[in-house]
């Protein structure tokens, strides 16, 4: 049986990226396999680890828990879309580099997208709020201390204004 393919109008990182995929294609797989955007990582594939988090119309969602056909017409931001227009690191990426917020880096794309949206909604989080912001993302290397520091450092960079 040949599976029916459906047209999906997706905008990814500001660029229209039309797709033709089966209904069962997860958004995570559509990004990675169909569009070649392999920055979005797939860890547990059932919504627990947070590695595949992308922004859907600006809000963090697990891309492994969303069907690509279900978000027709919406805007997706992946980790590839977080750098500055000139290609330099965005504030959260810069903070992760400065604070040693990653080791193997597998979970990092999910943290970066989550924190980018989190700091947009709450630009100066308390220490507890910074912890809460990343509570839905798993990291098996760092022990989280430097990730929380990176959240606080990214907030500082944001407060300093565009570099």
């Amino acid at each position, binding site marked *: 049986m040949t599976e029916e393919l459906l047209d999906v109008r997706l905008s990814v990182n500001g660029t229209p990226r039309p797709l033709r995929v089966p209904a069962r294609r997860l958004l995570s797989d559509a990004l990675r396999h169909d569009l070649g955007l392999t920055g979005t990582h797939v860890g547990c594939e059932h919504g627990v680890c947070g590695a595949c988090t992308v922004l859907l119309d600006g*809000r963090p969602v697990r891309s492994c828990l969303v069907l690509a056909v*279900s978000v027709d017409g919406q805007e997706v931001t992946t980790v590839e879309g977080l750098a500055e227009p000139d290609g330099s690191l965005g504030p959260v990426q810069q903070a992760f580099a400065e604070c040693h917020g990653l080791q193997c880096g597998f979970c990092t794309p999910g943290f970066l997208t989550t924190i980018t949206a989190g700091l947009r909604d709450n630009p100066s989080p308390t220490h507890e709020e910074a912890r809460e912001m990343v*509570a*839905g993302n798993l990291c098996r290397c760092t022990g989280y201390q430097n990730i929380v520091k990176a959240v606080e450092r990214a907030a500082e960079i944001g407060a300093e204004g565009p570099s």
Partner: protein
Amino acid sequence: MKPAPFAYHRPGSVAEAVTALAGDPGAKVLAGGQSLVPLLSMRLAAPSALVDLNGIAGLDLVEVDATGVRVGALARHADVLASDDVRRVQPLVPLALAHVAHATIRNRGTTVGSLVHADAAAEMPVVLSLLDGSLEVEGPGGRRTIPAGELYVGPLESSVRQDEVAVSAFFPALAPGAGVAFEEIARRHGDYALVGVAALVDGASVKAGFLSVADIPTVVDLSGVADDDLGEAALAQLEPAGGIHSDIHATAAYRAHLVRVLTPRVVRAAKEGT
């Protein structure tokens, strides 16, 4: 870890959704998908078709008036949680929503979807039951209202029929002078609770709702019970009501211990809120 193939319908109205469901007994409704998509990926569910509500305009409403809060089928947990009007009219809704998974899941998951999924470990079915709320559903024969007390029939099983779409849920307002509280114990932040308790105190009436204790959300009446006896009184009603279950996460004995500890704590907090 990929879903099995299914046909996909994206209706533009609830009536079209009902028609699509009625035309295929193996069809399921997709709203936020935060419980359904993992079930599909793990192939614990393999519906022949999905009827995706996400293209239906107007289902994302969160309406608040003096009588209560009406939440549409596409209202995301995060939107309900962020509403100051909801917090003012029925504070138990946001108190419990803050415990529903993580913020990222709440951005996509829907409150009505969580009610219909009927997981006994979920927060919102207990809230709807404790508040005597209701669910509005539309089927081939039109709309009907299901009172919360008739909604939950078994584990992951509600009385919503296969060819019905849950359109909205109604959470009654908190009466003047009444108080509510919510607390749960989970192994990890954002994870399913081992036991959760919601309490509603209104004058002499004291009720508590329990999640993750029995097979369905369970409400017990604790009116007139002395503060020191609340835990035992709750247990005395919960055990015959369907039993306290054991699973890989906790034994029945440990859950009973949590009921003894949490019930007086949450009832006290609800009384302080009156």
